[in-house]
């Protein structure tokens, strides 16, 4: 059997979901035997490849880079999973949405709270610009499965991944879909 081509990506999130993924400890070795990790913040691939079977998306769509990447991921991937509350609902990343604009957030973070050399970062082509409205992943592209939690506990990730790797229709119920 061909190994499943797995990707994980990190959009507008705190990396906590990936930390929780690493919390799978020795089960990661079992997983490694069943999948080929083709793209991830924890491996060194620069470009999101073609023909990906499964992608876990951490984080909300918060800037123009995220937006472009999430479309590319959808084109090149069979099954998408919204991985963690920021991907599922926007969560903490979307807490700026009631302000409707990015300016007050940037001013607060980079001018009012700056200790030294206050300056709003503006480096076209290097620092991606923020979207006015942070979106959950499924508000931008269709998503197959949802893995809530902030972060989703390792056990929950394992339940979903083992179902997917074995080619079963994933079922998460009971406490396994609790947000927060």
């Amino acid at each position: 059997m061909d190994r499943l081509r797995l990707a994980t990506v990190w959009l507008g999130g705190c990396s906590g979901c990936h930390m929780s993924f690493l919390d799978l400890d020795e089960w990661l070795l079992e997983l490694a035997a069943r999948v080929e990790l083709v793209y991830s913040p924890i491996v060194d691939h620069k470009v999101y490849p073609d023909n990906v079977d499964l992608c876990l998306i951490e984080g909300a769509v918060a800037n123009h880079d995220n937006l472009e990447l999430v479309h590319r991921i959808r084109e090149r991937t069979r099954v998408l999973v919204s991985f963690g509350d920021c991907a599922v609902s926007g969560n903490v990343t979307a807490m700026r949405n009631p302000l409707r604009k990015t300016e007050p957030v940037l001013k607060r973070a980079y001018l009012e709270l700056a200790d030294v050399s206050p300056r709003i970062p503006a480096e076209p082509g290097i620092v991606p610009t923020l979207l006015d409205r942070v979106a959950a992943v499924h508000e931008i592209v269709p998503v197959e499965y949802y893995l809530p939690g902030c972060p989703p506990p390792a056990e929950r990730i394992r339940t979903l991944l083992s179902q997917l790797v074995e080619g079963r229709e994933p079922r998460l119920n009971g406490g396994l879909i609790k947000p927060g």
Partner: protein
Amino acid sequence: MAAKTLTIDGQMVGAAEDQTILEAARDAGIHIPTLCHLEGVQDVGACRLCLVEVTGINKLLPACVTKVTEGWEVRTSSERLQRYRRMVLELLFAERNHVCAVCVANGHCELQNLAVSLGMDHVRFDYQHPRLDVDLSHRLFGMDHNRCVLCTRCVRTCWYIEGAGTLNVAGRGEKSKIITDLNAPWGDSTTCTSCGKCVMACPTGALFYRGVTVAEMERDRGHLEYIVTAREKKQWIV
């Protein structure tokens, strides 16, 4: 008092004529999801999570405010009802700003529990992200409108259990909000007795004790039932 006989999910149930479908179902051990219902204060049918089907009646009926009727065949968990309940829940989540990860009620919230029990793993409606305030003017309590589902449990508790009449609902539609007195800061209220019963009644993280932080807001609703039972039945049961 006359008894009524009806079936709920195929089960024969006997109920007193002044009982609601919700009460009859609970006595028979059948669970119907609720949110605005609170033991001890009268029901208003605000949330629509308890909707049930009755054979021969076209519209869905809220179980908490519908009295039992002789011969009715009630269904509480058809595929259609589950679909509608999930939709109601998703609309509640989309309407205001729910960020469980940083909420005082995380892990102790009736809205969050409903999301789990009704299988809501994501929200299909556009999040509205309204800009709302948090009132921290009261010495003991806080009110976070971001988390309020407008169930009015706090309002009914303040009026009918405490008898203070401090809390009210102002505005219409998406502009509705819970106010204290005539929309003055809670801390300036001349009617609030600071009894804290509204905080005990709130199902979400909207009302909380000052000083609690993420996931710390637990409440003992037993206190409210205790007071109501003592008053109405003259029984002091802890």
